[in-house]
């Protein structure tokens, strides 16, 4: 019955789950696997974004591949941790490339303020 304490919990969860329906494929997985896959996709998006500005780091793709392996092996917390790390690499690489767009001779070689 929805009116019991536990029932509220179930009702809430059911409502939330229903709200997640548009998510498609992820809907049919258990939450942990879904979380791992979402984390991996987020990492991949960040990696592609860094790559688009020439800022991808060396190990990011390998980390994502490893996270996929971990997810396939059911090691979801490990997969999520590694995927999050890879996502941060993608974000840091993107910011780095954008920050370096006007990279130039150092002043000790060529002082442009003169």
């Amino acid at each position, binding site marked *: 019955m929805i009116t019991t304490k536990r029932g509220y919990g179930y009702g809430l969860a059911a409502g939330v789950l229903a709200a997640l329906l548009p998510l498609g494929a992820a809907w049919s997985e258990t939450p942990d696997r879904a979380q791992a896959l979402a984390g991996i996709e987020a990492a991949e998006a960040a990696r592609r974004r860094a*790559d688009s500005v*020439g*800022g*991808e*780091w*060396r*190990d*990011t*793709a390998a980390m994502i591949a490893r996270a996929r392996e971990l997810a396939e092996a059911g090691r979801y917390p490990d997969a999520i941790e590694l995927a999050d790390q890879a996502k941060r*690499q993608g974000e*840091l690489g993107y910011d*780095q*490339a954008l*920050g*370096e*767009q*006007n*990279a*130039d*001779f*150092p002043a*000790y*070689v*060529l002082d*442009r*303020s*003169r």
Partner: protein
Amino acid sequence: MTKHGFLLATLVLAGATLPIGPVTAATPEEEQAAFQAYFKQRFPNVPEDEFKNGTYAIDPVTRENWEAIEEFPPYENAISQGETLWNTPFADGQGYADCFPDGPAIMNHYPRWDRERGQVMTLPLALNACRTAHGETPLKYKKGPIADLLAYIAFESRGQITQVEIPQDDPRALAAYEQGKRFYFARRGQLNFACAHCHLATSGTKLRTETLSPAYGHTTHWPVYRSEWGEMGTLHRRFAGCNEQVRAKAFEPQGEEYRNLEYFLTYMNNGLELNGPGARK
């Protein structure tokens, strides 16, 4: 002088004396002069014609080893294999000499701005363009037969002077130079290094036991037999390796980034004598 001439002259003079904010326009010539002056001032005891020998110009201990190695150079096989490749006709009966009538001593013709293609042309690209035009499969760009062919061409070109041009009447050439320059000074990779961080102010210092080589002299001696590789490799192979060493994802050999980088860096080395192929640790 005409009325318009006076007006123009006045405007030019006015413009020259007005402070116009941060000066961003130094010409490539000025940049090159500053680059070379920096290294001559940093290494005052190194004769100008020694910079082409890299760390061996500034590190007497490793120079001794290098001179011993140069008595029986590890790139000799590459030169003779390259010579065979150069002289072997393609399936259609033609050869490299037909694409390069000035060859094989053509090392200092590259890199150069190619108006038709609208891009920097490098020697490996030109060699593969020749192959493709004659129905041959292109060679890979980091090692193997391309390195042998380049070794032969480099050897035959020894003594030529680096003389990269940036044509003034094609702004795309200057844009390519600028992109190469930006690449050189941009931090990249997890370790956050630009090429400049190892090869300008810190050149001559030691990274663990290895002396960092100065950028002035970097482009004269390719391809290189590098002991670490145990084989020959090209300039773009080294670009890729350096990028990976700072934990950046490497770019494609002979892709736009490394072509423009080669264009900028070789222009900075203008005036230096070519002395490839080389042997390095």
